[in-house]
């Protein structure tokens, strides 16, 4: 505990290590561990146990009830799935694959049941050896809770599970086993004729990958992590598939009957079930296999654990230990896999390995094993490591292990000693410490997810978690908003507030209302309901959406949010078909899609007036600093061309956005650029104490009409101020000026403020320099994040009222008080860009690209967002760049495509599993063409009465997004240390709750993480170590305030890469695929390599000291390390494939992010490397942040404290 708290000093974790070793954690842990090992595996069973009283023997327990029925149920389940498959079959199939991992788990389950024993024994067999190691490993075992959760989640039909498991176990395993080896070839699965095919396909292709990932990861994590997630995931795909096919609704209806028993699953299943009745049969017979694929997860866990695991129990533990041990010593790492493999191999071997997902821990271990045994895997692993991406399995394995091993082999040479880098894990420590390779690897998870995502993600199935943000996938809107618009922390919400409180899992959604979609996805349709405006519920005012139930022959509809019944206006009337759906359902986006737009009527406009086209106003600082740095001329030059690229909806038409220009230092200069003038006119306003707009006509103009005057102006501005000696600036009046201009023109708009210095000139909003490093770490630190003058809060409020969004570009050479200057941009939905020590030569490119993007990006104005939810939950808190006047309406003066808003939900009543939880996010805004519109995003998630379901359907990336925003807001009012503690606490509670309620009993010394949260610790650690919460000595207050504000409107993808940067080894670059990333640790860097690191804000090219000459020639065109110019901001254009590809990659990275990343070349052991190392987030940070390993230990300790 203490460890974490000691922020300033590295000691926390550093010390801990020793501590962990023996004192603190060590002994207790160890002791139990040994004894506990059996337990650890038990945990696997545990989950099952959790669900079913009979813990260990769950198998039997379940069996009884289920056994008999189970098969049947299973069958039905499968049927459903199968049905789903069938219906969706063709289409969905693709989706299913991603989930396969789940199937893996099931397989395990299956394994347990039938083949289990054999397999396990084998598996476990080997473990013993491991035990020894494990001892050393200590309590860090991370058992995969997943199995259990999965069980429960799906369990609802607990009874059925066991049976299913059995079924699955039997059939699936074989099938998988076979399938695996063959890779995707479905042959083995043939058994299930109908479903099988599907399942096979899925599994083969997708499943393997999933397994592999697990395997790879597993080795380390497997034991620790059971991946409950996987099961869930698997389902969703299937469900999605179902949707993809026909119409979601029907599926539901049909599904209902069949699924009920399985309801938990149902949600996904329903779709499937509905379709083919005939399928069931198929399933019955063949089902097992298919189910395995999909269900396995659920069923298996329980069953497998009880049945198979128990026996193996001991061994497993050993296995687990084995893993750790392996990790401990560098060499062991390799061994562990190997060691494990043997165990697995012996068993039903291959299949199991694949199946393992459920047993993850084991499986993981196994995978290596399996690989080893199976000739293919073995080879694959090592070589493939980095390279072999292609096929599901091998690549994954490779990837997974690759990381682990690859370094060794590839880098191995240099690394083995690791000592080279010294920093992280010196050999000695290693013995006491955990093996970094043994703990959950983000890379592994990411790669696994990528591998299993082969098909478009369809949103038709409720409660289906989408692929990770790091995965490229296509989305098909079938009734729920695309994950590009909305991502939830949990896709299965607890039914009651008590559960939610118990689990501490934040319930939140990250909404990016105007997100840009890739070209292959259709942007939301615009719906016009005529003069009456959009159809809405009478009571709660929810907008027409697919969830509305039409009744009485279509004359009324019942709101699914508040249950109120509303008349359908005559012009909207439509008959219902026999299923109760409107006949025109598929012709109307608002009845069939998750996201769409309504044209708003005049009632939705401010003052009941159709809005004027918006305006852009450019406010340029022309004080001495700005002029001297060349900034002014750069801006003016750029604006000339940029003005042709103002946002517009139809590229054929000129933008209707009007523009205006202001320059300022201590006074403001407005420009009249009316088209009829021969020369622009400058109007100076020196009365900054009482700002006003000096002109109306000619200030805001159409670019095309006034082009000549504008160009003349932009040419002259730099000249006019070339000799300025004015160093003081104002700031408050500048925004006031823009605001007044918009007021005068009676329109909404956006201000682009280019500002250089602390506004110390006498004027409203004048600031003083209050940067005081002494306050850092004290209770007063929070005041530094608060604005120093209330003036800006009021100003922000006014801006929001007018729809005046402010984008701030800062070019400070010293403290400018971002915390205060940022108040208005942040409250108005604007952005802040900061270019410290701006120099034309090196920063121009970044600035201009940011500016271009900022000006061109799609944007809405004067927006109000309202999130409505179904009864039972309520949107209670919002995070992002906006302003709130009351508790429900999020007001955004401007809303662009990069802004995300995180919404937190709280229970105010019970939710029903049947109806799930609905949310509708409606954003009323003025489009860039001046049209008033409503963008609607609908999202439905499942509800669960079992915690395990919750844990199985979480998305860690989104949780981290929420937690970081939560924490970064917290620093405004609390000492940062308290905020960090809160975070750690909450995280510990989440995991402890899981451990307590969902994981099978195991030794207290074992760390068991839910599958889909297994990265929570590593990511959380990154949040804790961020500059905001744990500043290094060289981090300025401005930087922290800047980051704090930046994070507040990031979406999940951005926070992900921000907290866990992407680190790509540049060894061989092939077109079409990126090299597999490596973990953010210095250990992973090879002295002979070149790496690209991306955070969304920074881009580094790290060059090892003993890099190969060929690489240097390819990249820099220079043969020697010494000749690399580390000040370059772009790579030389060289005519070789490597260089081309690298530059392509860099460009693609930049294109992905909302901010341009300046390339910084970092030479190993150069001074700049310090900065680079800051982003190696798995390592201990210079500011005292714990390394991943240490933090994990710490977290474990916290959890154990909570549990005891």
């Amino acid at each position: 505990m203490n460890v974490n708290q000691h922020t300033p000093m590295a000691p926390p974790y550093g010390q801990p290590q020793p501590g962990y070793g023996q004192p603190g954690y060590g002994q207790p842990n160890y002791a139990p561990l040994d004894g506990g090992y059996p337990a650890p595996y038990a945990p696997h069973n545990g989950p099952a146990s959790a669900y079913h009283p009979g813990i260990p023997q769950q198998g039997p327990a379940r069996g009884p009830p289920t056994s008999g029925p189970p098969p049947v149920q299973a069958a039905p389940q499968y049927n459903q799935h199968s049905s789903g498959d069938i219906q969706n079959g063709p289409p969905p199939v693709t989706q299913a694959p991603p989930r396969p991992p789940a199937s893996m788990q099931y397989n395990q389950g299956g394994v347990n049941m039938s083949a289990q024993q054999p397999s396990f024994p084998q598996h476990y067999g080997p473990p013993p050896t491991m035990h020894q190691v494990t001892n050393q490993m200590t309590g860090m075992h991370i058992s995969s809770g997943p199995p259990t959760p999965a069980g429960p989640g799906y369990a609802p039909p607990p009874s059925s599970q066991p049976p299913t498991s059995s079924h699955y176990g039997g059939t699936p395993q074989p099938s998988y086993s076979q399938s695996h080896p063959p890779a995707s070839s479905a042959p083995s699965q043939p058994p299930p004729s109908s479903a099988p095919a599907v399942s096979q396909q899925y599994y083969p292709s997708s499943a393997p990958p999933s397994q592999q990932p697990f395997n790879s990861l597993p080795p380390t994590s497997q034991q620790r992590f059971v991946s409950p997630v996987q099961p869930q995931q698997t389902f969703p795909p299937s469900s999605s598939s179902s949707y993809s096919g026909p119409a979601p609704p029907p599926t539901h209806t049909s599904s209902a009957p069949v699924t009920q028993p399985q309801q938990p699953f149902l949600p996904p299943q329903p779709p499937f079930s509905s379709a083919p009745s005939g399928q069931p049969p198929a399933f019955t017979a063949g089902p097992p296999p298919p189910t395995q694929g999909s269900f396995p997860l659920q069923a298996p866990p329980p069953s497998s654990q009880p049945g198979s695991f128990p026996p193996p129990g001991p061994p497993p533990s050993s296995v687990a230990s084995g893993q750790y041990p392996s990790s401990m010593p560098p060499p062991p790492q390799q061994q562990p896999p190997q060691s494990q493999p043997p165990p697995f191999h012996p068993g039903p071997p291959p299949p199991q390995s694949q199946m393992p997902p459920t047993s993850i821990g084991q499986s993981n271990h196994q995978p290596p094993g399996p690989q080893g045994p199976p000739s293919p895997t073995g080879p694959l692993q090592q070589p493939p490591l980095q390279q072999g991406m292609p096929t599901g399995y091998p690549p994954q394995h490779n990837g997974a292990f690759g990381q682990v091993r690859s370094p060794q082999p590839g880098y191995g040479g240099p690394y083995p000693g690791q000592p080279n880098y010294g920093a992280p894990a010196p050999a000695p420590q290693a013995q006491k410490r955990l093996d970094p390779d043994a703990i959950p690897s983000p890379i592994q998870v990411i790669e696994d997810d990528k591998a299993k995502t082969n098909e478009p993600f369809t949103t038709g199935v409720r409660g289906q978690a989408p692929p990770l943000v790091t995965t490229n996938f296509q989305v098909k809107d079938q009734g729920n908003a695309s994950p590009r618009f909305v991502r939830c922390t949990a896709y299965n919400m607890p039914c009651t507030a008590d559960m939610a409180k118990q689990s501490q899992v934040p319930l939140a959604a990250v909404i990016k209302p105007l997100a840009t979609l890739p070209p292959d996805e259709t942007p939301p349709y615009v719906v016009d309901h005529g003069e009456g405006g959009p159809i809405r519920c009478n009571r709660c005012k929810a907008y027409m959406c697919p969830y509305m139930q039409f009744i009485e022959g279509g004359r009324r509809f019942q709101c699914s949010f508040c249950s109120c019944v509303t008349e359908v206006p005559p012009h909207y009337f439509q008959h219902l078909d026999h299923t109760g759906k409107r006949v025109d359902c598929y012709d109307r986006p608002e009845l069939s899609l998750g996201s769409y737009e309504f044209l708003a009527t005049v009632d939705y406009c401010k003052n009941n007036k159709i809005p004027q086209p918006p305006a852009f106003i450019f406010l340029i600082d022309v004080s001495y600093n700005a002029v001297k740095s060349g900034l002014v001329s750069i801006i003016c030059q750029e604006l000339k061309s940029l003005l042709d690229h103002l946002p517009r909806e139809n590229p054929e038409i000129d933008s209707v956005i009007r523009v205006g220009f202001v320059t300022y230092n201590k006074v403001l200069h407005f420009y009249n650029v009316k088209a009829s003038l021969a020369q622009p006119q400058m109007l100076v306003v020196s009365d900054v104490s009482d700002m006003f707009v000096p002109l109306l006509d000619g200030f805001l103009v159409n670019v095309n009409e006034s082009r000549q005057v504008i160009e003349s102006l932009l040419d002259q501005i730099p000249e006019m101020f070339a000799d300025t000696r004015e160093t003081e600036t104002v700031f408050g009046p500048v925004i006031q000026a823009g605001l007044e201009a918009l007021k005068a023109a009676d329109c909404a708009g956006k201000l682009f403020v280019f500002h250089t210095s602390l506004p110390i000139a006498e004027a409203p909003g004048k600031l003083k320099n209050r940067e005081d490093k002494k306050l850092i770490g004290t209770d007063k630190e929070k005041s530094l994040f608060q604005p120093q003058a209330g003036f800006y809060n009021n100003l922000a409020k006014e801006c929001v009222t007018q729809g005046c969004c402010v984008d701030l570009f800062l070019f400070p050479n010293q403290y400018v008080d971002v915390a205060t200057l940022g108040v208005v941009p942040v409250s108005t939905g604007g952005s802040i860009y900061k270019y410290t020590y701006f120099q034309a030569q090196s920063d121009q490119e970044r600035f201009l690209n940011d500016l271009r993007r900022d000006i061109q990006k799609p944007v809405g104005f004067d927006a109000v967002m309202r999130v409505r939810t179904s009864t039972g939950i309520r949107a209670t808190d919002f995070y992002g760049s906006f302003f709130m006047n009351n508790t429900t309406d999020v007001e955004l003066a401007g809303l662009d495509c990069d802004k995300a808003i995180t919404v937190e939900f709280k229970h105010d009543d019970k939710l029903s599993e049947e109806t799930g939880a609905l949310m509708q996010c409606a954003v009323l805004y003025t489009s860039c063409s001046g049209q008033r519109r409503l963008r609607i995003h609908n999202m439905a998630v499942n509800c669960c009465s079992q915690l395990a379901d919750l844990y199985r359907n979480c998305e860690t990336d989104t949780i981290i997004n929420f937690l970081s925003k939560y924490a970064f807001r917290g620093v405004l009012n609390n000492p940062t240390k308290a905020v960090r503690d809160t975070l750690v606490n909450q995280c510990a509670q989440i995991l402890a709750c899981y451990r307590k309620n969902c994981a099978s009993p195991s030794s207290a010394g074992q760390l068991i993480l839910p599958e889909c949260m297994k990265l929570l610790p590593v990511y959380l650690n990154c949040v804790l170590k961020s500059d905001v919460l744990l500043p290094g000595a060289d981090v300025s207050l401005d930087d922290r305030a800047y980051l704090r504000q930046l994070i507040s409107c990031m979406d999940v993808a951005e926070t992900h890469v921000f907290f866990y940067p992407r680190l790509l080894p540049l060894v061989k670059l092939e077109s079409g695929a990126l090299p597999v990333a490596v973990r953010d640790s210095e250990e992973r860097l090879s002295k002979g390599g070149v790496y690209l690191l991306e955070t969304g804000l920074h881009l580094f090219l790290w060059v090892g000291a003993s890099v190969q000459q060929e690489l240097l020639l390819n990249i820099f065109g220079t043969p020697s390390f010494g000749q690399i110019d580390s000040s370059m901001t772009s790579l030389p254009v060289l005519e070789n494939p490597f260089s081309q590809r690298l530059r392509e990659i860099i460009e693609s990275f930049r294109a992905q992010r909302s901010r341009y990343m300046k390339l910084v070349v970092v030479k190993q052991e150069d001074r700049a490397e310090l900065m680079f190392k800051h982003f190696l987030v798995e390592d201990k940070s210079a500011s005292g942040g714990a390394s991943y390993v240490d933090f994990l230990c710490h977290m474990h300790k916290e959890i154990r404290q909570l549990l005891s």
Partner: protein
Amino acid sequence: MSTYQEFIQQNEDRDGVRFSWNLWPSSRLEATRLVVPVSCLFTPLKERPDLPPVQYEPVLCSRANCKAVLNPLCQVDFRAKVWACNFCFQRNPFPPSYAGISEVNQPAELMPQFSTIEYIVQRGPQTPLIFLYVVDTCLEEEDLQALKGSLQMSLSLLPPNALVGLITFGRMVQVHELSCEGIAKSYVFRGTKDLTSKQIQEMLGLMKPAATGPQGRPVAPQDAVASCRFLQPVHRVDMNLTDLLGELQRDPWPVPQGKRPLRSTGVALSVAVGLLEGTFPNTGARVMLFVGGPPTQGPGMVVGDELKTPIRSWHDIQKDNARHLKKATKFYEALANRSAANGHCIDIYACALDQTGLLEMKCLSNLTGGHIVMGDSFNTSLFTQTFQGVFSKDFNGDFRMAFGGVLEIKTSRELKVCGAIGPCVSLNSKAPCVSENEMGIGGTNQWKMCSLTPSSTLGIYLEVVNQHNAPIPQGGRGAIQFVTQYQHSNTQKRIRVTTITRNWADAQSQIQHIESSFDQEAAAVLMARLGVFRAESEEGPDVLRWLDRQLIRLCQKFGQYNKEDPTSFRLSESLSLYPQFMFHLRRSPFLQVFNNSPDESSYYRHHFTRQDLTQSLIMIQPILYSYSFHGPPEPVLLDSSSILPDRILLMDTFFQLVIYHGETIAQWQKAGYQEMPEYQNFKQLLKAPQDDANDILETRFPMPRYINTEHGGSQARFLLSKVNPSQTHNNLYAWGQESGAPILTDDVSLQVFMDHLKKLAVSSSA
């Protein structure tokens, strides 16, 4: 008394002075009994083409509180090279440069014909003339175009080195920077905020280095440059300014239905004054304000922007219903005083159909010597020609304007100065010759006139302080010296000194002499000025009563009559016209507000208190000429009986020129006789008054409203309201004369007035 008339005429021509009494009663008591005070109309810069200025400094009396200028009245001892001041009797040596004087070699200032003499002195740097245009942009497009044209034209009239500046205003106030190339720059001020002079200068960047630079770094001396940004020599910015004026647009802010445009006249003036104050204090400068409507916002607001609330009328003012009046007046007075203190004058050119707030703003011009011009539109010749008239030049090619005038009056011991009425402000100089009895602007013997024209005339009121028991020796003379320092329009500093003298007379023994020395024209104007001055602060009826009482007392004093017998009443020739002047004065718009808006009253009064005697008399009693086939044009009585059908009348009221065609003439004209060759004479008859009117139009400043009307025409009211209503609907048949036009009025006619006057004069109780 032709001698006196000649004497008066001669004095006026030479010195620009006309006294009410040309013999002064020798004691205070007697002086007060004369009713009309010893006073004079003085035209400081009366044009004297025959008077070349001398190129040296005047010689001053060395007594500290005298400082009178050497003049022809001084006793000079040529041998001792000493002169005695005729005011304080101090003996002063001549300065060394006068070493060569002798009785045959006298300097000009000692020669009697140089009782008025002008010195050119070299003091301080010569600063060019400064013209600051302050232009209202809330005008109709047509008006704005016309105004722009006039302004551009005026640039060509300015001397090349004159500095010009431009401020435009509407809802905002813009101070245009004229020095820059390319982009036209201007500083903008909000129209609703009252700013101090310091703030304005700060905002315009005119502050001296000392005030800036908290960085401790001395800022380059930019004041020269800074001030030049807004005020540039015409020759440098001619093109710029012409373009700028060309691009001048109407105030772009929308004016909603039922509203007046927001016009920030107050702030615009405040900025103009602040700008000049900061850049050219104590230098002659002319702020020319062009307005097309009342100030509707900010300080100095005269009326709100709601059209439904009309601008204040006399009725409102009397009922104390004019909301903004006091505040606005106070604001403009403060501005006027600041401006006057710095020697800058403010002209107001107000052209609008409705009132423009002259009532509130009048002090700007009244105190600084600026012009007020009132018209209906900038798009009229009345404005354009009047505006050109501002830049008219004299025989030397110099503008008929002077700046920064300071008039100082020195008197002999028997006299003291009570005050002055005219376009001036007091300099609060408490010299011994200042009387405690104030008339007009008193309490000082020095006044400042920021701007002067050759016709600017002050009424100076004096007091005889010699006690009755200290008689002045026979033949004693009193003397007054007017010392006027000013900046000539060619930027020279000049001093004009006028020394006049009059004989003392014992009122008891020489009352006839005194009576015959009475200048009834001057007295009428001087009394009228007093009345107008009072009218500014008192209720109209009170002023009339006071005037009546003065008249009655005068008649009692000088009339010849038997008590209680009105018919026996006679006045001597030197007073015979005086009651008639008073009669018309009572009816004049200077004292009557009925039928006049407050703006008009202010306008009329403004001009009345600054014009010379002739013009003032015309204002009091308009001149009526008759043109007919019966003889050459002749002046006729300003009486309704003069309105005959076969006459063309030309009336000059100073503000209006009315040509009135009698009924018959009008018929002839309609029948087109003038087009027929055989009626050339008729054509000439028609043309004659027009020619005469044109002559007047060309010379008069401001240009009068020219009205051409006929019998029964609606505009005939201008004539009918001026003539003595000797025939009205009440007495039309009683008079039974052959002609004349009855006036529909209840006003008393001159006859009735005189009857009453006689009655009161002879009454012992009055």
